[in-house]
């Protein structure tokens, strides 16, 4: 079983549009939405939830006011600024480390489990899907990502699926790291803007750090052709496969408004056709287990 993560560094470059399209094109893949604090894949794939799990990712300090003598030792030792002057816990700032509970001379503080989100196992028209939702304001999205990926692995074993397609979160911090550890390939979706290029390079360095084979796809490449050339050139120099270039097309937003993938909504569009090309490249390179050495698409 192989694992492919769609990532970007910069947000809003088209990860979910591409993941959803791959879901349609893939036969027998399991899908995983690892953007747990702002998941969007379900709006295109319409999963039917089969199973819901509570996610208890962390703890929170609770002060027993009948025992507390307001000595303030907890407030002094808390490194997260999570205890107010009147010795109340700010649950948003509290990381559940337990220092306050350990040093309270009156034993007035305990740690309680907190439900930080929900993980779901669902069925879609295109295969099974593992996804989740972090409760707004809760922390530990990295751990929830790990739970989603565990669920996806269990599903793929049960279903005898050969591929897990992971919609990654933006950024390069803890939730993204949790989405790329141990995967077989990462497709970085970028756009031809200064920030797109900057963030692409950091995302590629992250993949290198975790020994993941990178592929790059330039979305909305015709917004700035000079920058697209720069990206192609950079990838060629760095020996990184360009999987494809997707043109800007308002049909992508139209498809989203209609709750459909671009492949279903407009199969004959230039965007759908190019995503198919990208998919075929990734698929053959993943299933054959060898890296892609064909540079003929590089301008």
């Amino acid at each position: 079983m192989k694992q492919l993560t769609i990532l970007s560094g910069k947000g809003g470059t088209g990860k979910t549009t591409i993941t959803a399209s791959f879901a349609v094109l893939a036969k027998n893949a399991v899908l995983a939405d690892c953007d747990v604090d702002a998941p969007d894949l379900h709006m295109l794939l319409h999963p039917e939830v089969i199973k819901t799990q509570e996610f208890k990712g962390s703890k929170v300090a609770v002060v027993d006011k009948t025992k507390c003598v307001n000595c303030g030792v907890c407030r002094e030792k808390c490194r997260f600024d999570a205890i107010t002057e009147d010795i109340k816990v700010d649950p948003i700032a509290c990381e559940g480390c337990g220092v306050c509970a350990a040093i309270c001379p009156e034993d007035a503080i305990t740690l309680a489990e907190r439900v930080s989100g929900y993980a779901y196992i669902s069925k879609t028209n295109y295969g099974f899907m593992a996804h989740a939702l972090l409760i707004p304001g809760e922390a530990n999205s990295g751990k929830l990502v790990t739970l989603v990926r565990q669920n996806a692995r269990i599903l793929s074993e049960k279903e005898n699926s050969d591929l897990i397609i992971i919609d990654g979160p933006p950024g390069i911090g803890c939730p993204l790291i949790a989405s790329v550890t141990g995967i077989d390939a990462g497709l970085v979706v970028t756009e031809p803007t200064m920030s797109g290029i900057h963030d692409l390079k950091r995302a590629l360095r992250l993949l290198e750090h975790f020994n993941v084979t990178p592929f790059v796809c330039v979305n909305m490449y015709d917004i700035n052709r000079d920058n697209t050339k720069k990206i192609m050139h950079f990838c060629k120099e760095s020996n990184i496969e360009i999987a494809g270039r997707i043109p800007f097309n308002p049909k992508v937003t139209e498809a989203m408004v209609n709750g459909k993938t671009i492949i279903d909504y407009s199969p004959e569009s230039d965007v759908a056709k190019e995503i198919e090309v990208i998919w075929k490249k990734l698929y053959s390179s993943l299933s054959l287990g060898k890296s892609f050495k064909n540079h003929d698409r590089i301008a």
Partner: protein
Amino acid sequence: MIVSVASGKGGTGKTSVAVNMALSVGNVQLLDCDVEEPNTHLLLHPNMHRTEPVYVLVPHINEGLCDHCGECAKFCQFNALFASSEKVLFFPELCHSCGGCALACPMQAITEEKRRIGTLKFGAAGDLKLVYGELDVGEPMAVPLIKAVKKQIEDNKNVILDAPVGTSCPVIETVRKSDFCVLVTEPTPFGLHDLKIAVQVLGKMGVPFAVIVNRAGIGDKKVYTYCEEENIPILLEIPYQRKIAELYSKGVPFSLEMLEWKEKFQTLFSEIRRLVEE
């Protein structure tokens, strides 16, 4: 006044709004808190003056004093320490720097030492002061670096914070203690879905907020209906124009080329001030 610019969904135009607003208002300090992927400097082209490494505190185990009792590992809520009968293993990426292991160690075998996680960068573009953080690639924890960026806040300035994408810990740390938060969205189903999550987060935090609709004209009208139903003011609409997208792609803040926008961002900022003072 501290104004943060956040969004939920990525790529809606946070950085663009933060930079154009910063360039239109005087006496500004702009802090880029998107330490995973900082971008404001790509639009501002600032002169950078200096950099400063940022460290977190992590445990150092003095093997000579350690009797492998395992109390430190038992205490750690983040599984950053693992104690066997011969050795204590430490996993730095999991450590939250709470200091609890040092408190828990009965042998006083744990002291704290510094571990680098990223860099603070200081610069200026004209009279606009810029500070941004850059997380070292491979480091998972953005929050301590965001705290370091926010420590640089100057009280007498109009402070604008460019938040990272999403709605979890890094965003919360950025927006915390802001006087106001601007949520930049786009009028699409993804934009609306993530806006709703961001609104819930801000509601829990008690930070007042309003919405800016970017790329107005694409998608549908549901963002507008939602804001009306929830009584969330929409302070500004930025239409979808190829010219704005092209300028952004080249790293040019559009208010510098499309001068009518400078005034609109000034009006936006005074409107925010009015809402804060209300």
